[in-house]
């Protein structure tokens, strides 16, 4: 067991898996000589060589499309989109090709690839280094979309994603990279994709979130505990498959539900979670389903007050939790 932050957990996991399985290759912009702009592949070029650590041309469609070809031919590519915001030139390859290849070939072909992408705001990244992209990808059947929030899950879910026979979009919140630390077992283990987890038990309301927001929700819940309000906090971990059962079980206990996400509130993950709670647990509810999400502006602005206005934070979450608990 070693204490690590999220980015170190991802680095170490990928490195250990490349040592164990020589079909695993990484490709992306700056993943070689630079070791990735977030240092996720630091040292890989020296250890594994340029055949398996591919500094690609600056072309995200190429990164996605070449990874698909590699996966079809039996490699296990882990492609890096330098920022999730830059993944859209590769969107066509990911949603039209990777996602649909198993289906369109009636199971004859499959695409066991992982697309890693740092996402999310609060890091002064402005419009094009702050976006949350999970809803775009989770909308398309054929993809799995996961958002580990802890170093433990970062390791276990990355290994599961590499093992998965289908394409997995593996989203890493940039602000969690060095902020969030935790114990990581040294041995190899996997965490299933599609299992949410209750990280904090409570009785007064259920708060569903993922990524950085999950940590903010836990913090807000801790503050309210001193007031005698106990919030149950669910970390979704996986957007698709969506573990609605764990959410419903919790809502059945607390009878109140809120969803917190940093992506635009409109048609974001919270819309789906809220809809499923309404469909399946309407009569368990003692209050409205509350959603906290990003405002409907094109993306996160740069200046610190503007960024703070966009991002859900612990204070905002705490206020909304209190309001709902007292409803």
């Amino acid at each position, binding site marked *: 067991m070693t204490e690590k932050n999220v980015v170190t957990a991802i680095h170490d996991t990928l490195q250990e898996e490349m040592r164990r399985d020589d079909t695993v290759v990484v490709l992306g912009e700056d993943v070689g000589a630079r070791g990735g702009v977030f240092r996720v592949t630091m040292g890989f070029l020296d250890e594994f060589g340029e055949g398996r650590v591919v500094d*690609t041309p600056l*072309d995200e469609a190429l990164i996605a*499309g070449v990874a698909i070809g590699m996966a079809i*031919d039996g*490699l296990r590519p882990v492609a890096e989109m330098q920022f999730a915001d830059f993944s859209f030139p590769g969107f066509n390859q990911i949603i039209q090709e990777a996602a649909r290849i*198993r289906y369109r070939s*009636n199971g004859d072909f499959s695409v066991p690839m992982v697309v890693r992408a740092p996402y999310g705001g609060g890091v002064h990244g402005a419009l094009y280094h702050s976006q949350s992209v999970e809803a775009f990808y989770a909308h398309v059947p054929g993809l799995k979309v996961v958002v580990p929030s802890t170093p433990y899950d970062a390791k276990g879910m990355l290994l599961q994603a590499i093992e998965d026979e289908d394409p997995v979009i593996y989203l890493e919140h940039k602000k969690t990279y060095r902020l969030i630390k935790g114990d990581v077992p040294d041995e190899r283990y996997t965490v299933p994709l599609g299992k949410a987890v209750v990280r904090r038990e409570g009785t007064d309301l259920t708060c569903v979130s993922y990524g950085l927001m999950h940590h903010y929700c836990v913090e807000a819940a801790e503050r309210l505990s001193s007031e005698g309000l106990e919030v149950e906090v669910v970390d979704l971990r996986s957007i698709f498959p969506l573990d609605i059962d764990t959410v419903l079980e919790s809502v059945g206990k607390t009878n109140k539900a809120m969803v917190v996400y940093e992506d635009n509130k409109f048609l974001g993950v919270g819309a789906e979670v809220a809809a499923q709670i309404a469909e399946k647990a309407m009569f368990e509810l003692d209050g409205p389903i509350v959603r906290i999400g990003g405002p409907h502006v094109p993306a996160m602005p740069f200046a610190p007050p503007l960024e703070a206005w966009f991002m859900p934070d612990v204070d905002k979450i705490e206020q909304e939790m209190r309001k709902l608990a007292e409803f």
Partner: protein
Amino acid sequence: MAKGKDLHTDLGLKEEDLLEMYRYMLMARFCDERQWGLNRQGKAPFVVPVSGHEAAQVGSAWAFEKGKDVFCPYYRDMALVLVAGFTPKDVFLGLFGKKDDPSSGGRQMPAHWGSRERNIITGSSPIATQCLHAAGIAYSKKLKKEDSVVGTWCGEGGTSEGDWHGAMNFAGVHKLPLVFVVENNQYAISVHESKQVGGRVYKRAEGYGFPGFEGDGNDVLESYRLTKDAVDRARAGEGATLIELRTYRHYSHTSDDDDRTYRKKEEVEEWKRKDPIPRFETYLKSVDVIDDGKIAELREKTKAEVAEGAKEAEQSDFPDPLSAGQNVYADLEVV
């Protein structure tokens, strides 16, 4: 015509190769004629014609080794996939959307070829996306030191797509065992080459650091010669090649298109006079591989084979509607 004899011998082709190439060209042509007939009868809602492209496709496909090399075709490549192992029945199973359609079990539109068993990589409708898959597969083959060459085909319209550029660029950077074949039929649906291509397609290869060649796509032996050289280069570790084969499609883009709105009748007629099949027959006769009697016999036999394949496919089962929810994920039931 003694020189003609030298031509195919120089290319390493035996008489039986020539006869097989000829047979596949006929097979594609007759499949096309049959599918148009079925379309007119209301039995086939959508047809992607191949007629006119048979020489470019059979000639280029012939340069690859079946079972070892990999094909990343586009939708017009019926003759190519026949060479790669599809039967006429397979073609018609796809046309009707039947359960046993090898490409997709009736899920995709006709002419979206794919078959793992035959090393034909599944394709989609967006243009030139397969070129990047071909680049990824070629990279993988090179990394694994497998003796395998990848071919990818598209039209001249496909060369405008970013994915084509990306694949060419990656092939150049990594000296991939990859052959790009562009079947330039001068029209991307209605848009003429003059509005599609700045400069010339084959010359672009130089900018990516590998050679490009142009050839007569209505000449099956020239199509073969250029592609064979490229495949040999790729196999020898000398990297990628671009080949532009000039040809023409005899019909509209698909059965939903009407080429009379953008092509002059005289132009179509002129190109039909350059039909690759009679042209190859002339060559075959000139080198005494075939005579008129044998041509008639082969045509009749191939036509019967195509008719039989179409009939069997028509009589076969549609997929079970409930199967439409399957094969979304390996390990999840989603419906």
